[in-house]
């Protein structure tokens, strides 16, 4: 069996799974899986860049995805003019002061001679800078959050079309990735893992607590959409007529149509990123990356700047995750910082890449769809399993209720098990690297 045949079989199987879900459950569920599968595939592509191409271990995918989500709010929501006049300048000034403090500290570190004076100077700059920053920042935040807290209480966005947020999300994620990569790359591999784990938790903490930015845990709902609203379609006579010609009622047809529009947009992004990743993999640059991954010392001896290349690909991969994060928030139509969990947004993507085949872009895409389908289906399957196991027990017994209640936690166990089994028995994944 050639590779092409095998890959076709794999993707046909995915199609069967999704279409099968359409027949067995509902077409809405099938399109839901398809849309999130497309987004997952993009995230998996990003992680595959980092892990598959370069062997970098990033455990902070959740943070980069969340930054993409933040970009959606900052770009697409209408601005809040009163908030801007109340505290906008204060916030901007405070952020500039904060950045200035850090720059001054870095300058002091590089310019002053080594010794106690330098240490004291840096301490003084940081302490004074911090208090000045807080003195400007706190009143501005209070002023912004006081403005109609039930509806806004934040600066709002730029009011641009939501699709613009996708590349912006990528840029935002890239910026943070640069900062992290600059510190943790070039040290042992575990340090990058720990640093990314930390930054992702901090990004989520900032998004939950800084209400002036994106309302924190009060959530931003009703984000603008790139697709028409279902309710508008249902009132459009032309649409109703077309729906009727397919034999569908307007409500059903409108929800399916909107999901299909999203699927189309996401497919375009996925195809573009896939072609780019594929070109990169087969370019001299891609070969250099794999050479560095396989033997850092040899690559270094050949004159390759290993740390700089690592930084480059780390930033690129994180940017892809940021784009996917922005797309996902667009699909949800709301930003809810409380729902970002490492399990769902970091670990699951890792399982996708490893199951699909690390180092192979097609494998990452396949893993994205397959594992997402499994993730959605594990819960009903777990519940069914528990119901089957407990069939013989009498109703209301403590063990039976406990087992049925625990079915929700089957996901953790299943995903951990899938990862360990694949790593052990098929470490190269379903579609191995060539």
């Amino acid at each position, binding site marked *: 069996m050639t590779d092409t045949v095998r890959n076709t079989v794999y993707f046909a199987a995915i199609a069967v799974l999704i279409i099968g879900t359409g027949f067995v459950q509902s077409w809405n569920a099938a399109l839901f899986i398809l849309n999130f599968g497309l987004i997952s595939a993009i995230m998996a592509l990003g992680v595959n860049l980092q892990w598959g191409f370069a062997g970098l271990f990033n455990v902070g995918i959740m943070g980069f995805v969340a930054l993409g989500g933040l970009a959606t709010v900052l770009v697409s929501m209408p601005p809040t003019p009163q908030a801007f006049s109340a505290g906008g300048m204060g916030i901007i000034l405070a952020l500039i002061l904060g950045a200035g403090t850090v720059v001054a500290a870095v300058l002091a570190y590089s310019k002053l001679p080594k010794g106690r004076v330098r240490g004291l100077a840096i301490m003084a700059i940081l302490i004074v800078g911090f208090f000045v920053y807080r003195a400007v920042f706190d009143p501005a935040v209070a002023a912004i959050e006081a403005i109609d807290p039930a509806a806004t209480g934040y600066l709002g966005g730029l009011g641009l079309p939501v699709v613009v947020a996708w590349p912006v999300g990528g840029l935002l994620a890239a910026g943070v990735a640069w900062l992290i990569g600059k510190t943790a790359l070039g*040290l042992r591999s575990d340090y990058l893992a720990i640093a990314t784990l930390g930054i992702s938790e901090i990004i989520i903490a900032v998004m939950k607590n800084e209400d002036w930015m994106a309302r924190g845990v009060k959530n931003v709902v009703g984000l603008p959409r790139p697709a028409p609203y279902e309710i508008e379609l249902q009132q459009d006579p032309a649409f109703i007529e077309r729906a009727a010609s397919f034999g569908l009622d307007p409500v059903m047809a409108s929800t399916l149509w909107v999901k299909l529009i999203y699927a189309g947009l996401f497919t375009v992004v996925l195809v573009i990123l896939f072609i780019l990743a594929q070109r990169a993999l087969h370019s001299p640059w891609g070969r250099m990356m794999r050479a560095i991954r396989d033997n850092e010392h040899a690559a270094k001896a050949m004159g390759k700047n290993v740390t700089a290349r690592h930084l480059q690909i780390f930033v690129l991969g994180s940017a892809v995750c940021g784009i996917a994060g922005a797309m996902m928030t667009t699909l949800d139509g709301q930003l809810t910082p409380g729902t970002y969990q490492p399990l769902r947004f970091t670990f699951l993507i890792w399982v996708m890449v490893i199951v699909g085949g690390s180092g192979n872009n097609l494998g990452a895409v396949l893993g994205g769809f397959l594992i997402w389908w499994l993730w959605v289906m594990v819960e009903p399957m777990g519940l069914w399993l528990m119901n089957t196991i407990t069939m013989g027990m009498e109703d209301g017994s403590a063990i039976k209720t406990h087992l049925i209640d625990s079915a929700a936690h089957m996901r953790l166990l299943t995903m951990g098990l899938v990862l360990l089994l694949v790593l052990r028995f098929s470490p190269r994944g379903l579609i191995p690297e060539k």
Partner: protein
Amino acid sequence: MDFLNALVAFANFVFIPATAYGAQLALGALGVTLIYGILRFSNFAHGDTMAFGAMTTILVTWLFQSWGISFGPLPTALLALPFGILGCMALVLFTDRVVYRFYREQKAKPVILVIVSLGVMFIMNGLVRFIIGPDDRRFADGERFIISVREFKALTGLKEGLAIKTTQGITVITAVIVVALLFYFLNRTRTGKSMRAYSDNEDLALLSGINPERVVMITWLIVAALATIAGTLYGLDKSFKPFIFLQLLLPVFAAAIVGGLGSPVGAIAGGFVIAFSEVTITYAWKKVATYVLPDAWAPDSLVQLLSTDYKFAVSFVILLIVLLFRPTGLFAGKSV
């Protein structure tokens, strides 16, 4: 100006909580550092090993409570602790046998082991939630305070009160005993010396006839004991919630790295550095400042450097500073 009251307020809100928290972090970081020294990878499953050990202890505690066994003024959990340790030992030995040993024999790269430990972490987390559920569990009983605010005020006549919770006292005493035992074991016994030799130079240790599988097994046993004790003490002091232990992973790792991965003394120092920084930076200093400063200077605001929601950020920033300026940590741990 009232230094005595300021000192009491400081002790009550900063020193005592930070000491207890530091002891818990130090025990956790010791486990991470031992695994790193002997098995040579960062064990992401450590947080959930702590959760599993604590869970076993809680289950045994409930059993004892239902039998009416208690430990007088001390929490029953202390009686249950040995059983929790045994349960945790069984689990880690089982994981080592079915999961880690395969990669050890293959001499897999450390980063593969880290990914494997991530898988183990999720299975353990799933197990804990499966068995005890995701909710908050309280299992502390016995006397709540060694000295309560009211007793302290009556005793000293000061305006400011001081409370020491039993759990805080137990945490510190247990940690001291455990650390003393561990260091005696590592420095004085034959097995401990062979562990250190294996950690320093694997090939040389093998040449001298040290059995690597035995060293690894003993390491896992010690790590299981440390993790269970750390998890139970944390659960007694705060409360037991399965997902908390995932969040505890960051300060624990930060402590181990700040001290120097692979260095037991460093892990203890790192634990206290992280704990004291977290508490002092997120504590609202208004009360202490009011006592120390003259009335005219008394602050209006809370004098809190960062809100408590950002306590991860503190350990993270310390971690970054150490990585930037001294990647081997305070006590020069293993390789960079």
